[in-house]
């Protein structure tokens, strides 16, 4: 739960026993071959793992780098979020919980959570900022179809940060029956550790699928779960690890250390410590914080964090679509945009071998993209 000076468990006393119990339960489950087997079976026969590692031949030729794409967009529900929710929901069932509570930004985690809950017979309540509900209608409809209750959050910036607050409030009020199914590598211990472990399947698969250890491993970062899972597979290699943030939500580049949502990490904030409202075209990255392990990887220099602007992101979605026939999520397009911008330059010299995690698919973003056409 501690990553250097980051992490920790800054939660109300009411949640401390629940966090303790969760940490103990996850430790036990993660060491239990039967639990691992059940999860691995679901990942394979239900969620479609392993996801392929696709050589982006056309872009590679155009950019002068060798680009491999880890295709989380092909996982069930359309993003890497399914890896985490299946693990946590199995755990919640093992702990005797009756329902799950989840926050969501772009709706990808919400859809995944609703999916896992339906599959494993738990009730799902999903908290989503009103502003995100407006721009991610498709995912709202998917959650309802899956039988989940979507609760609009009308406070603050009405985005992911506020949805997270509201989910934690709901958890305090129903801590016995409910599991708080956090979607990223933020939050109090054990979440950053647990979610990274549940997402490391991305990096482990990619490592074994890649014909070589890449020079650079790139992933987008909001809270940072797909990046954490990807990096986990390569942290012990010589590969450079690059996280790409939204310019309007760049906690690493523009934030300072702080405590939000239960962990000490990097946070966009003002001089008093009021948390800033992030601003990104990608609802899933529209978040002023970042997981504490990323803060630590950044502080120690093991990983680099860069940012890209909304217009670069939109252009990246289109270029990847036209070059490779893959429409990725606006979130994932941040990583693509960084490669497009830096290829051939000092940060990404010609000839570099790059492994990039495409965290999700872009169906949900078609309306947004259409509006900026």
């Amino acid at each position, binding site marked *: 739960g501690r990553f250097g000076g980051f992490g920790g468990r800054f939660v*109300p006393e*009411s949640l*401390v026993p629940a966090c303790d119990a969760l940490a103990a339960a996850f430790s036990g489950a993660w060491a239990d071959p039967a639990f691992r087997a059940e999860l691995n079976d679901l990942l394979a026969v239900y969620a479609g793992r392993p996801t392929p590692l696709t050589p982006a031949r056309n872009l590679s030729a155009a950019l002068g780098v060798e680009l491999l794409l880890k295709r989380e967009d092909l996982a069930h529900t359309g993003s890497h979020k399914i890896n985490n929710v299946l693990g946590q929901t199995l755990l919640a069932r093992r702990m005797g919980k009756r329902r799950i509570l989840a926050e969501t930004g772009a709706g990808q985690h919400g859809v995944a959570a609703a999916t896992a809950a339906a599959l494993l017979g738990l009730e799902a309540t999903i908290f989503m900022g009103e502003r995100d509900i407006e721009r991610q209608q498709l995912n709202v409809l998917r959650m309802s179809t899956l039988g989940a209750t979507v609760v609009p959050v009308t406070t603050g910036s009405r985005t992911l940060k506020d949805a997270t607050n509201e989910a934690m409030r709901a958890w305090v009020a129903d801590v016995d029956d409910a599991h708080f199914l956090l979607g990223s590598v933020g939050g109090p211990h054990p979440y950053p550790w647990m979610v990274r472990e549940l997402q490391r399947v991305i990096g482990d698969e990619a490592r074994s699928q890649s014909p070589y250890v890449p020079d650079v491993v790139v992933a987008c970062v909001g809270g940072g779960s797909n990046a954490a899972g990807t990096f986990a597979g390569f942290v012990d290699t010589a590969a450079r690890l690059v996280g790409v943030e939204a310019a309007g939500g760049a906690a690493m580049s523009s934030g300072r250390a702080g405590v939000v949502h239960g962990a000490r990490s990097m946070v966009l904030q003002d001089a008093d410590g009021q948390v800033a409202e992030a601003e990104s075209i990608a609802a899933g990255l529209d978040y002023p914080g970042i997981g504490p392990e990323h803060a630590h990887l950044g502080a120690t220099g093991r990983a680099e964090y860069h940012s890209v602007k909304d217009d670069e992101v939109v252009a990246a979605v289109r270029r990847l679509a036209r070059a490779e026939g893959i429409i990725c999520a606006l979130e994932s397009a941040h990583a693509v945009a960084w490669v497009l911008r830096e290829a051939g330059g000092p940060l990404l010299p010609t000839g570099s071998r790059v492994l990039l995690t495409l965290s999700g698919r872009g169906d949900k973003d078609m309306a947004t993209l259409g509006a900026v056409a």
Partner: protein
Amino acid sequence: MTKLLVPYLTAGVTENWIDYLLAMQAAGADAVEIGLPFSDPMLDGATIQQASDRALARGVTIDAILAEIKGAPVRVPLIAFTYANLVFRPGAEQFCRRLAEAGFRGLIVPDLPLDEAAEVARAAEAAGIELTLLVAPVTSDERLAEIVARSRGYVYAVSRMGTTGERDALASTAATLAARIKAAQAALVAPEEALPVLVGFGVSGPEQAVEAGRAGDGVVIGSALMRRVLDGATPADLEAEVTAVRAALDRADQEATADHASHAQISGHRG
């Protein structure tokens, strides 16, 4: 023994918010909890969220709040209630020093549990600020004992599992928890050294205040008052409101004293 009455006020909620503070003082508050508004009040219900949003939307800063307090004729002890990020942003030492300079007596940080409290506790002690820790209904006995030992000024009993906010009835967990705290104190210190146990979260109106006061040594009333402020109550209205609670508590105290012998078991493990 008279029950303590600690009303809560979100600093900066209106331009004349100091008038509400003075009204509470005039109504016989034993101390006032001053909420320093935070953008992400994770443990607060809708009312305090709204009050915080309103204060922040008015552009208040911590500096401005402290300056206003410093300039006001406040005699009653003040306890700051705010979240960890506001404490850590300037650094716990500087934050506590500034509180002390503005005349604060104590500090409550609801998202700073025992395990994370050491740094702030040191800084508070150095600055002469009492860092009050919270106990929840789910807190284990062992942990509760440690919190009681480390808390300063008061021990804060979170009456229920949930956020702040008005409820139809006081949770039954409140009495149980207050009793557990009292028992822990009894094992730890002499009766006269035991810190007062304040019961808070979801206490609204004179009746619930009396009930909560009966469970502990006093009561924090927040959302019920802030709801009135948000709905447009004047400082005079608020003074009347707090006065009514004060009166109810005092009346209950007299009755309890009179009935003490015969109702010892009902009134619980009072030290």
